């Protein structure tokens, strides 16, 4: 069988990196092709080339046997190639039908929403892709939004759909639903490219797998021909130890305690509705939940970025409910925020400047309002060395590092400060296997040395492998507490609002 898409010898260079190095890649109709690799391996770059977002420096693309040049996503769509990005490209204040309709007909046409709705129904019903076409996108869950994205592509008649890490923000149930949709699409004769770094997804849905490492294809095989271990090896190029680090340590004195916390969300709604819990030194307490159930507001209230309407937050018995962030930090609280470039570091400042963001007021980094650059640089060097941050030196801009190295730096900074209470929000989201491993090890070591960690994560595997206890948050409330051995299915159900 002739592949629908054939990419031959694709090379794409960015300043200082070869993101794709003569890569060959094929997509067949009626097949799910997993594109596997660590972060920065070049998966997304390769697919962006195919979708017309990047122009390759060398190589050819054939669609249906004809050589094509794809200069824009519009051209890719015309060739039957669609892509669903990690960050959805939907307009929140438009309805589902309006989102689907953007750019769909000639600009001279009237807007016939009923016709659009019929088209949506047409492409989505058989696949089990249910969404209400009249709903506004901002009212939808992440899973529903993803369905809208897929529908948008299907309405445009794509033959091949590329999905970039589609399960990263989905619950296990939603992921399962998505896989069912993908399988039905495949059975309907479409081709699917699944960009992922999760092994079980490959094993579960893929027919064919291509592994990229440092921009090169290191493996290309049918799934039946290859073992999971061989895939991991191909991916990271060395044996990594998967599985949970040693559990349990003795809870120690001192605690971060939250009592009856009520917090309002951005639109004035009650986002956190009377939450109470305690995190003691020497334990990792997980918060599991579908994004948007109050996690963000909870974290922001504890760290002082958002006002608590009522309730009490204490650290070691000291009330910090209405204190400045500065006071919280000096009480030993630290945050590893979700948005690395927006909240954790200032991308345009150097690493050493970022190193003292929280300490710039205090000795020895500041004396009578004058910063000590040499002390800051020493601190940055210490963090870089102890936590294996790959960087030329401590003077480069923080934003120039890869996500994994920024995160190692951020985590290292909290450790170097001697924090005792750590709130970590999706600490490994978007990181490759090696960086994930390093961040998780740091958290566990911190816990073992008596630190307390509140781990808020959308990655259930992460929560299960790290937490000593785990709460499920649903609509602003902690609905259930779980202890090891964790029951994955029960947790998933609680996350979806069942079992109350």
């Amino acid at each position, binding site marked *: 069988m002739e592949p629908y898409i054939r990419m031959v010898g694709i090379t794409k260079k960015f300043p200082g990196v070869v993101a794709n190095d003569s890569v060959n890649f094929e997509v067949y109709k009626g097949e799910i092709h997993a594109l596997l690799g660590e972060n920065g391996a070049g998966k997304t770059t390769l697919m962006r080339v195919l979708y017309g977002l990047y122009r390759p420096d060398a190589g050819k693309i054939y669609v249906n046997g004809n050589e094509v040049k794809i200069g824009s996503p*519009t051209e890719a*769509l015309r060739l039957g190639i669609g892509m669903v990005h990690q960050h959805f*490209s*939907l*307009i929140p*204040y438009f309805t589902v039908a309006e989102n689907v309709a953007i*750019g769909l007909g000639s600009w001279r*046409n*009237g*807007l016939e929403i009923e016709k659009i709705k019929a088209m949506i129904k047409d492409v989505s019903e058989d696949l089990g892709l249910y969404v209400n076409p009249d709903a506004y996108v901002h009212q939808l869950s992440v899973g529903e939004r993803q369905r809208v994205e897929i529908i948008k592509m299907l309405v445009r008649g794509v033959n091949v759909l590329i999905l970039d890490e589609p399960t990263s923000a989905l619950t296990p149930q939603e992921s399962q639903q998505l896989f069912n949709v993908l399988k039905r699409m495949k059975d309907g004769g479409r081709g699917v490219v699944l960009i992922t770094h999760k092994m079980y997804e490959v094993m579960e849905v893929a027919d064919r797998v291509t592994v990229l490492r440092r921009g090169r294809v290191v493996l290309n095989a049918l799934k039946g021909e290859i073992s999971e271990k061989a895939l991991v090896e191909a991916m990271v190029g060395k044996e990594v130890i998967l599985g949970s680090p040693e559990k349990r340590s003795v809870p120690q004195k001192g605690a971060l305690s939250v009592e009856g916390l009520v917090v309002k969300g951005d639109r004035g709604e009650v986002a956190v509705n009377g939450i109470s819990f305690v995190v003691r030194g020497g334990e990792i307490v997980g918060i599991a939940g579908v994004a948007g159930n109050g996690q963000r507001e909870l974290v922001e209230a504890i760290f002082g970025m958002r006002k608590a309407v009522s309730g009490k937050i204490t650290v070691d018995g000291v009330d910090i409910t209405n204190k400045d962030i500065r006071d919280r930090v000096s009480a030993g609280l630290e945050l590893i925020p979700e948005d690395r470039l927006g909240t954790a570091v200032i991308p345009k400042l150097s690493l050493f400047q970022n190193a003292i963001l929280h300490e710039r007021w205090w000795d020895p980094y500041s004396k009578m309002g004058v910063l000590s650059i040499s002390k800051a640089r020493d601190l940055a060097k210490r963090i870089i060395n102890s936590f294996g941050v790959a960087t030329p030196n401590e003077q480069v801009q923080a934003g120039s590092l890869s996500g994994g190295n920024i995160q190692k730096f951020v985590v290292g900074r909290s450790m170097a400060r001697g924090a005792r209470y750590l709130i970590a929000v999706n600490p490994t989201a978007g990181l490759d296997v090696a960086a994930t491993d390093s961040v998780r090890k740091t958290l566990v070591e911190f816990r073992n040395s008596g630190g307390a960690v509140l781990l808020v994560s959308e990655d259930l595997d992460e929560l299960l492998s790290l937490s000593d206890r785990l709460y499920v948050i649903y609509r602003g409330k902690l609905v259930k507490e779980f202890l090891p051995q964790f029951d994955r299915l029960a947790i998933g159900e609680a996350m979806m609002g069942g079992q109350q």
Partner: protein
Amino acid sequence: MNISGIAIAVVLATFPSAIPIWLAALGETVDQASGVLDLGVEGIMLMGAIAAFVVDYFYHSALIAFIVAGLVGLAFSAVHAFISITLNGDQVVSGTALWFIGWGLSGVIYAAYFGLAITPPSVPTIGSINIPVLTSLPIVGKVLFGESPLFYISILITIALWSIMFRTQFGLNLRSVGENPLVAEVMGVSPVIYRYVSVLFGGFMAGLAGAYLTVGLTGSFYFDMTAGMGFIAVALVYFGKWNPWRVSVGAVIFGLVYALSAELESIYTSVPYQFFSMWPYIATLLIILAVGKSAHAPDALTMPYVRE
């Protein structure tokens, strides 16, 4: 003068006072719906006003005066379009520059043509359309059926704009560019084209609004005659939540405030006139306070679109 006499005078003056802000605000609505804030409306209106005045003074055609004013507004806004869309410049800075240029240049042009005269030159105003029979109805007859042609044109444009923005593919594409130009582009909609069209249209409308001030309403030009109307038009777009109908309602409310303050100013001559002329601006502040954050502005408003 009795109360009902005042009321009638105010009501009769409401639409004529509303029309300039109305036209300008409709243009600005489209502008902003595509994601471009044009703070230069004030300057463009002044350029339209002087252009229309000069044309009508020398060529005695109100129609040509309006068309030329619209085109001058369009050309003027092209500068803003080029800076903010092609060069990705700061829209606030560019718009403010446009305001100052229009403000000064209109005065210079006036001085160049007419110099200083003891009796300022004037042109006949275009008057009003009187719809037979209906005009003779008491009060409403004069208010609704004896208005300036621009009143009816404003209503038609309001209906047309609403239909285009919310009932056509073009309008959806336009609004999607204002919400998220990247999404629009991926779906085959060119943000650059839509934004240019919108900004040029906004400029054309501001030009017409200015022409109405000279050729339609007063018959003369004087320096800074808009006195902030362009900015009120910008504020009205927020009040109107980027919907031509609501914007129109807002324009009429402002027409009422203008008419009322002008009427009271002429009655209570012992009160310094500034007391009354500040009312529209106070009303603007109140409106912005009332609307506050409740309105959803286009997400990409004032954001340049830089392609990767």
